[in-house]
Each structure stands twice: as C-alpha cells, then as structure tokens.
C-alpha cells in the first residue's frame, strides 16, 4: 500500500534554532498538505499545495515558517527560529487532487520538541 513518507520521525531542537521537515507524498498525488497537531487537539492546516503552487497558506505563521514544493513532488517545511510553542506533531498528507472528498492519506508525522 502506498504511503506518505516523512522524516525525521522525531526532532529535538533548541529555541531560536532552525528546523526542517521533509515529506514525500504518494506518487501521482497532486495535492499536498502540511498540518500541525498540538497534543490533545485535532490537526490544523498550515499550508496546502496543488502541484508546486500554494493554494492556501492563510494559517502559516509566515514570519518564521516557510514551505516549498519546488518540483511539485516532495515538500519541505521549515521553521526559523523555532519557539517553545512550536512543539507539536507536524503531519503531511496528500490527495489525488483538490477537493476534500477525495480523502487524505497522512504520513506518520514528525514529532518536534523545542527546548
């Protein structure tokens, strides 16, 4: 069964440092999402790509977060500088296209701890 790959699985970083997460969606999936899941809460959308273009980044804290999907395949999410409140699970998901009714496939996430 096809999977969404994410790395690293765990990351511990000091506040004010830079950190990056990588996601490889299911082959052929044009739509890619980055979600943040704070412990005990539901996932919240940070950014959505259609191919290499950003569709929605309205909830992305752009002063410290950036995301790219240069060739429309894999994607990188960066935080610089990291803050204590950024500690969370960062989930990547992909979908065959736009339209939430196509269903998302989530990766296993990156657990970030900022100390």
């Amino acid at each position, binding site marked *: 069964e096809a999977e*969404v790959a994410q790395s690293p699985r765990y990351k511990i970083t000091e506040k004010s440092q830079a950190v990056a997460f990588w996601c490889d969606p299911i082959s052929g999936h044009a*739509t890619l999402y980055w979600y943040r899941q704070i412990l*005990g*809460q*539901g*996932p*919240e*959308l940070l950014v*959505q790509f259609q191919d290499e273009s950003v*569709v*929605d980044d309205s909830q992305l804290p752009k002063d410290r977060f950036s995301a790219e999907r240069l060739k429309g395949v894999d994607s990188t999410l960066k935080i610089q500088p990291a803050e204590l409140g950024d500690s969370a699970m960062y*989930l990547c*998901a992909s979908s065959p296209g*736009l*339209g*939430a*009714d196509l*269903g*998302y*496939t*989530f*990766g*296993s*996430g990156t657990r970030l701890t900022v100390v």
Partner: protein
Amino acid sequence: QQQVKQSPQSLIVQKGGISIINCAYENTAFDYFPWYQQFPGKGPALLIAIRPDVSEKKEGRFTISFNKSAKQFSLHIMDSQPGDSATYFCAASSTGGFKTIFGAGTRLFVKA
C-alpha cells in the same frame, strides 16, 4: 463558523459495547463529513465519510448518523473491540472550498 465541536474528549467502553462520538458544525456550506482514526505515533487514517444527502452510512461495525437540520453527526462503533482503542476525529469540508476542519478528537479505550 469554521469550527467543528466534538464530544466527548475521552470514552471508555466495555468490549462488545457501542461507542458513540458526537460532532456539531455551524457552517452550512460543509457538505462532506469524514471520520479519521489515529493510533499513537501514526497519522490519522480515513475511516468512513458521509454526505448530507443521506442520513446514515454503514461500513462494517462503523456507522455515521447525520442530522442535517440539527447540524450534527455521530460515529457509532458497534461491538467495540480493544483494537478499536484509538483517537477518533470528525471533520468537515465543503466541496467548493478545499480545507478540511478537524474536531479536537475523542480518545477511545475499549476494555477487554
């Protein structure tokens, strides 16, 4: 208006019992309502979904009941098993918009 409210936060059910999780929404533009199941250390996985043109959808032991007038929907897990112990998220989206809004989640524990 964009929120999806989910209850209870946690639920303990005996093996063989029925687990019921409820969700409510405000935005009448929502027209797709999925449920996701998440095990510890894993990402959420799509479990079952419903559109508002039907009042109920069943897949195996999992049933979604939908009340359009009340803007509420619920997940029923029949014959609950210890392997069903996980966190369940309801969600809502509109076909025209592309964002899925998730509830806060319900941690289900099924006692053997």
